[in-house]
């Protein structure tokens, strides 16, 4: 492509089937106690 550069990204639709194992960290256990941020949590099931 000449006009568009797509960043290397995990596509969300590909995570539905094998997702939801629940082993990942809960957000508030890290460094945020008042402003929920989920997208920075690492997946434990890669």
């Amino acid at each position, binding site marked *: 492509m000449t*006009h*568009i550069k*797509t960043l*290397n990204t995990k*596509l*969300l639709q590909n995570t539905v089937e094998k997702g*939801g194992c629940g082993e990942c960290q809960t957000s508030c256990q890290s460094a*945020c106690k008042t402003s929920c941020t*989920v997208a920075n949590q690492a997946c434990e099931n890669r």
Partner: protein
Amino acid sequence: MIHKYTLNGMFIVLDVNSGAVHIVDELVYDILDYYREADTDTIVQKLSDKYGEDDIRTAISELDELVAARQLFTPDTYAAVAPFVKKREPVVKALCLHIAHDCNLKCKYCFAEEGEYHGKRELMSAEVGKKAIDMLIKTSGARKNLEIDFFGGEPLMNFGVVKEIVEYARSIENEHGKKFRFTITTNGILLDDEKLDYINKNMHNLVLSIDGRKEVNDRMRPRAGGQGSYDNIVPKFQKAAESRNQTDYYVRGTFTRHNLDFSEDVMHLADLGFKQISVEPVVADLSEDYAIQESDLPAIFKEYENLTNKIKERREKGEWFNFFHFMIDLTGGPCVIKRLVGCGSGTEYLAVSPSGDLYPCHQFVGRPEFKMGTVDTGVVNTDIRCDFENCNVYNKPACKECWARFYCSGGCVANSYNTHGDLISPYEIGCEMQRKRIECAIYLKACEE
């Protein structure tokens, strides 16, 4: 649904439902104003004053390719996944243990009301802590990784009990096929070499509370006698960070209306040698003089951009540090199911008061209407759990229309409750800041690719 924005001359397009991120040129950016509504000939006509026809047609064909690859205007098919999440067997996998409802600082913005959480000064007993561990093992189903956060008040005021709980959990984790990860949050006043050594040997994460510059920290984080805490804690925190090889810890601060130039505080912490930094906006009643007001948002947006540029500049010089609220994992982040349900408060994540009462999260502790049970009974008020289970992005009207919903997962439920008195109406000022942080975080990622 897409979201497009520019930052420092970069044109960025997010495809909300796939999570794809595209860096485009100005031509594509302009085409996207018409792409969904107009045919190719009409778009060529609309943009012919600014661009050549061949370029426009090539760019449109590239956009067509992305749509076909489900990386642009991807339909939202996840609403069907939400009922599946609700049907899962309820498990608890993380507990925030309020080890001490007492504190040796008098932080002015403390949502715990200087450690007491609307109640009396109280320390958790080892017995309550051990029962919490037993309850967690029993209610965690097949989950292997379990999390315990020692929180307060100030947990180092009851460190003997912290150690007893850690040792108890370690003594039984293998037989139950579990793995405990411990975090402790401290203001540092009582941190000494012996405690640090224990923490380093046993805690997966260490959160060190400091707001940044001395005058900023000491204004909001005074000791009981009114003197500041900065001089006492900084050398200890530096030592702690180094002793953990600058990983698996955070210095964590709060910014308020009094320091809207908070990028200076982040950089100050970086200049002190910290590599893992978190500074987040205060949550406060709007009547407080330090509370962030809607009118502050333009200045805060500008400040997040300032911070972005400062981080970029440092990283380009090889002086890397991590800013927690700009962390975003595009290649390995959470699955869409995690993104639907958010932080898990009231369901997977509960807080335990010193006397052993269960609450949906640390911010609800001490509010009787949110008491869910005790460490003896487990969760008995299942209506509250059900209310929190329903807190997914599809049940929050404002989130349905928001491009950031799969990054923040609907935001902090406690913030919603504090602002609106319900669990599903987002705290708008928080949303505005969250969206800006995501834009900055993705820009930083794009700069590094």
